């Protein structure tokens, strides 16, 4: 059988991709945001229960050590911020095991940038400006939605107050899933399912959609605040275009103690689920202890944005060699 060695993307697409990458660099150069390159390997990994980290054994000066391939360049970039770098951006190779599909690849490029002193709203505006500058035609206005409002509009339920049993049966029904699959699942899994299967495909059609006020339980590395209704929510946003999630931004958590306890909660949840624990990044925690400036940061899936800009059907159409053919 012939071995398939050809690139996943056409050479013409790779030329267009290079031009878009150059535009990204110009965008940040014009705004005095410093380009940085941080390591792909780290002594700690992402404890996020829903991400599967890859790790490798390396011979270091301290003998053979387990090093983690980053799921995003977040930890190293935050250490730079704590060291006083000022605004920084990176086009970083990131890794998430098992994620292969039309919008996923185990190895992918994350555009991540941090803006000390920026509010979440300022960063949303900058993210939208960048996205629009890379698209061949204007996608339409930037429209803000609150997470709660989307569930009211599309599903007639309240994500914060609807009883869990009702969310479970609604999610199972709307996603064509056997009800017993969700029997042991919590609110977040039901909400994620409804968001991904019902709401997300309808977002970003003839507009750039930004969603704010996610449940506080989905804060990850973002701060939390009380919204206009007095509900505790995560201080983060996501941007959607053509039903595809493009970016995820935070008002960054800078409290070292809070960060430490979230890592511990993640690993406790991992133990409960029978998942392997992940080494906590002590150097990030030490940097937060030292003090990281307040500000906002965002991660944007640049491969997906290029896919949309070039009108390609699958992510692999804009990758040199997708994971299945690497």
């Amino acid at each position, binding site marked *: 059988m012939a071995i398939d060695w050809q690139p996943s993307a056409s050479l013409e697409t790779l030329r267009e991709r290079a031009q878009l990458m150059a535009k990204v660099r110009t965008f940040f150069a014009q705004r005095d945001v410093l380009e940085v390159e941080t390591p792909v390997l780290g002594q700690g990994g992402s404890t*996020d229960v*829903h991400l599967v980290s890859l790790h490798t054994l390396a011979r270091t000066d301290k003998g053979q050590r387990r090093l983690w391939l980053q799921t995003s360049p977040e930890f190293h970039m935050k250490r730079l911020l704590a060291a006083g770098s000022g605004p920084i951006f990176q086009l970083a190779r990131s890794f998430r095991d*098992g*994620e*292969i*599909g*039309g*919008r*996923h690849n185990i190895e992918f490029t994350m555009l991540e940038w941090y803006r000390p002193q920026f509010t979440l709203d300022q960063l949303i505006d900058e993210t939208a400006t960048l996205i629009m500058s890379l698209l061949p035609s204007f996608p339409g206005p930037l429209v803000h939605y609150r997470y709660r409002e989307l569930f009211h509009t599309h599903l007639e339920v309240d994500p914060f107050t609807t009883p869990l049993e009702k969310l479970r049966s609604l999610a199972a029904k709307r*996603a*064509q*899933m056997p009800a017993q*699959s969700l029997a042991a*699942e919590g609110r*977040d*899994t039901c909400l*994620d*399912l409804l*968001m*991904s*299967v019902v709401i*997300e495909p309808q977002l970003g059609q003839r507009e750039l959609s930004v969603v704010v006020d996610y449940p506080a339980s*989905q804060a*990850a590395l973002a701060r939390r605040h009380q919204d206009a209704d007095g509900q505790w929510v995560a201080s983060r946003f*996501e941007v959607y275009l053509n039903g595809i*999630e493009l970016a*995820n931004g935070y008002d960054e958590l800078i409290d070292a103690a809070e960060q430490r306890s979230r890592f511990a909660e993640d690993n406790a949840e991992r133990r409960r689920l029978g998942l392997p624990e992940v080494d906590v990044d002590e150097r990030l925690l030490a940097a937060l202890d030292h003090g990281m400036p307040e500000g906002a940061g965002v991660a944007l899936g640049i491969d997906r944005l290029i896919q949309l800009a070039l009108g390609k059907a699958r992510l692999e159409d804009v990758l040199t060699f997708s994971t299945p053919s690497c």
Partner: protein
Amino acid sequence: MANYSTNEFKAGLKVMLDGDPCSIVENELVKPGKGQAFNRVKLRNLMTGRVGEKTFKSGDSLEGADVMDLEMEYLYNDGDMWHFMKTDGSFEQYAVEKKALGDTEKWLKEQVPYVITLWNDKAISVTPPNFIELEVVETDPGLKGDTAQGGSKPATLSSGAVVRVPLFINQGEVLKIDTRSGDYVSRA
């Protein structure tokens, strides 16, 4: 049968769902930025032919279905069952029910090879070859000299199928038919 996890799902894999054997048509990972991963899976129910979409949590698994495709020649109909014989030289025969035969009933011709789908050694569907040659048993008389385009008429073939044919076709002629669309292709 083995169990298959969502990360082993791929087009063509045969699995059991709600008691029926199904063939996976498409498997797509759905993953929110911060949350549990799911797989949206399109499946064809091999008993009914219907295609539906289902969601699974990533890591869930389904039991494999003991489904096999075999090439067999059509032999005869005994009024109740349709009989086929393996073409591998074993002369092994299978009896097929009307339900499993479905639409293929109108494309049956003796000694032509069909693909019989077996589940637990029982025939559940019969797929005709893409093209088949059949004789016209009834149609309006042909128009002499009219070999040009334009106009068609119904013709009943030896298998019982009725297809639209050009006006110049006569009773007794053997035609090549595309069984997927039911269209006349040419004279055989």
